[in-house]
């Protein structure tokens, strides 16, 4: 409403429904809203967003599903000791299903499993059942010290661990009973309290490997800048190709059009990233890995800041790449440079994972900073001021790219007949 006061009085009086004054914010908003509306009605965009959400959901759900999957095992049993051990193993497997921290002697996590016993009369019968696959394995023996586990190829991992633990438990219990220990003493023996760990140096590592987190962020940035960058360039060329641009520039300053396009697409890109991160975090929380959520949240704060700045920096250049050509078919020729500019930070982030002079330097270079600085934050080897300085550098370059983009866009957007070189665009002032 800043420019409102300067509206011609005549216009005001004659047209109650019209605001003919120049209102940058309003107009840029109208342009941005059109970009968003068009995108939200674009099936390809909706499809790819849904696809990415599905990928994130699967990435979260599949490991949880696999881990949560309890193997169902049928075990043939012959002999009293075998019966006792398999019975104990069944209890341990069932307990492990309920809580993830079942252990014997405080060591290791026991896998969950649902074990069904099938009593058999002879070893020969047990072997036959193992061979024809009716049972996963057979446990045979009357003495716990000469217990035999028979399997076809390999003993299923879960069963092996459970039977070993159960056998140990049974033997220890028997020895303890012989020694005349109380049941409290026996419990203390079976479930000792593990020591507490204190680290003097080094950072607390979350359950998600930081390299994986960095790779995920890098991929999101890469994907987002590439898809939205191409879409900005296409939206510019479409206006040139359909000639509607002359009508637009007669009504609105060219830089407002550019601003609207960049803002609209940035809003959509950030929205898409927040959606994907949100789905991922929600998924992690639902599947009971809340400890990973905090880690991802801590890392994604700076990631979002750098994403925003890096996106704007590249978005303006994409718009220029679009304005240099006249037809969609020619777009490939000018956007190839942009694709390199997008891939560079992506591969830099993936390759420069080791802390060192290269990583530190690249984390200040504005093109690679959007990925490498958050990477260093996640790896935890930065001072508090470092991301701030790096973000400021990106911001400065982004501002320059907006100014540069506006000038090139302004002078090339009306040139609708052929391809322009950068130099021509720079010189064609108003022509």
């Amino acid at each position, binding site marked *: 409403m800043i420019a409102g006061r*300067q*509206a*011609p009085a005549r*216009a005001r009086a004659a*047209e109650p*429904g*019209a*605001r*003919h*004054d*120049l*209102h940058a914010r309003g*107009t840029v908003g*109208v*342009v941005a809203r*059109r970009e968003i509306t*068009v995108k939200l009605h674009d099936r390809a965009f909706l499809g790819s967003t849904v696809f990415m959400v599905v990928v994130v959901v699967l990435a979260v759900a599949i490991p949880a599903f696999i881990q949560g999957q309890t193997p169902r095992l049928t075990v043939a049993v012959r002999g009293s000791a075998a019966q006792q051990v398999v019975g104990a193993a069944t209890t341990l497997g069932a307990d492990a299903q309920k809580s993830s921290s079942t252990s014997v002697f405080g060591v290791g996590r026991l896998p969950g499993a649902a074990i069904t016993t099938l009593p058999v009369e002879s070893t020969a019968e047990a072997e036959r059942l193992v061979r024809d696959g009716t049972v996963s394995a057979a446990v045979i023996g009357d003495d716990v010290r000469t217990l035999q586990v028979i399997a076809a190829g390999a003993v299923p991992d879960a069963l092996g661990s459970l039977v070993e633990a159960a056998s140990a438990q049974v033997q220890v219990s028997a020895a303890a009973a012989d020694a005349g220990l109380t049941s409290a003493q026996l419990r203390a023996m079976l479930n000792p309290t593990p020591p507490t760990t204190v680290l003097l140096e080094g950072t607390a590592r979350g359950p998600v490997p930081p390299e994986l987190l960095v790779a995920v962020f890098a991929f999101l940035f890469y994907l987002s800048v590439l898809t939205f960058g191409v879409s900005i360039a296409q939206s510019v060329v*479409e*206006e040139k190709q*359909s*000639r*509607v*641009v*002359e*009508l*637009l*520039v*007669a*009504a*609105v*300053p060219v830089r407002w059009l550019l601003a609207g396009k960049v803002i609209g697409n940035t809003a959509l890109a950030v929205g898409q990233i927040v959606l994907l991160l949100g789905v991922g975090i929600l998924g992690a929380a639902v599947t009971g890995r809340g400890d990973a959520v905090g880690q991802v949240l801590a890392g994604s704060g700076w990631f979002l800041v750098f994403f925003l700045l890096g996106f704007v920096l590249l978005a303006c250049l994409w718009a220029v790449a679009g304005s240099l050509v006249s037809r969609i078919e020619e777009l490939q020729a000018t956007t190839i440079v942009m694709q390199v500019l997008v891939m560079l930070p992506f591969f830099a982030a993936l390759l420069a994972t080791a802390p060192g002079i290269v990583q530190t330097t690249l984390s200040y270079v504005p093109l690679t900073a959007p990925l490498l600085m958050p990477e260093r934050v996640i790896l935890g080897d930065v001072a508090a001021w470092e991301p701030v300085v790096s973000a400021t550098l990106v911001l400065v370059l982004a501002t320059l790219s907006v100014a540069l983009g506006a000038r090139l866009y302004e002078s090339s957007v*009306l040139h*609708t007949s052929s391809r322009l070189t950068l130099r021509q665009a720079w010189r064609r002032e*108003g*022509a």
Partner: protein
Amino acid sequence: MREGLTLDAVTRRFGDRLALDEVSFEVRPGRVTGFVGANGAGKTTTMRIVMGVLAADSGEVRLDDRPIDRAARRRFGYMPEERGLYPRMRVTDQLVYLGRLHGLDNATARARADALLDALGLAERRTDVLGTLSLGNQQRVQVAAALLHDPVLLVLDEPFSGLDPLAVDLMAGQLRERADAGVPVLFSSHQLELVETLCDDVVIIKAGTVAAAGEALALRRARAGRRMRVVVTPARRDTVPGDPDGSTRPPLLEVELTRLPGVAAVGVDDGAFTVDLAEGADAQGVLATALRYGAVEEFGAIVPTLSEIFREVVR
């Protein structure tokens, strides 16, 4: 104070080529001004400079005697030579968007778009995607885009090209209506008969300079009196050997007319003579010569059509 649009010595170069050389003319409020000229004469460049799409190297464009700024330009209605709207947007959405860029609020833009589409016979296509419309109908939408924000000046580059006769009438009606409401209307066209019937004023541009400008009728009258039409019924028989029925007589009159001082050219068409007089020549000599040949049934100045003036000026 000069009202309406004024171009004052507008000059524009493209590299070495002088596209516009001190172009000056006026588009008065309430009048439809036709802008004619051969291809490449500078019509589109002039209109683009008026719309601020191109900058002039020198000279000035004023509206109501004030230099034009962004805010003023935003209220102009424009139909560019190179037509185009968003092919994949719905007709109404498109118009509302353009209306909003011209400063209308959403509700007003929507109401105006609906009203205009009604008036242009596109009411049933308003939710269609533009690309599915015929070219003629797309052109009508383009007309609506130019008129939507109730412009204070209309600049239309070839608004009639590609329109069917029915749409031409609709378009002409719209231009007249806007002009009658006091809006200066400038449009270019190659259809000179249309310009002649529709325009109050005419500007003829040739190779970047204004060759003629002013009221259409006055322009035609000023050029009248230099071309005379004479119809003579022969009174006496010339006895020419070998030509008893006198079929050679009209050529004789033609020869005599040609010999008159101040006569530039003589044409004969089915007994009617067309005499072009040089600047300042006296038409009475033509009449006197004709009278000697017989009864003069018609004698008068031919008021040239706009096409004739155009051809003469542009040649």
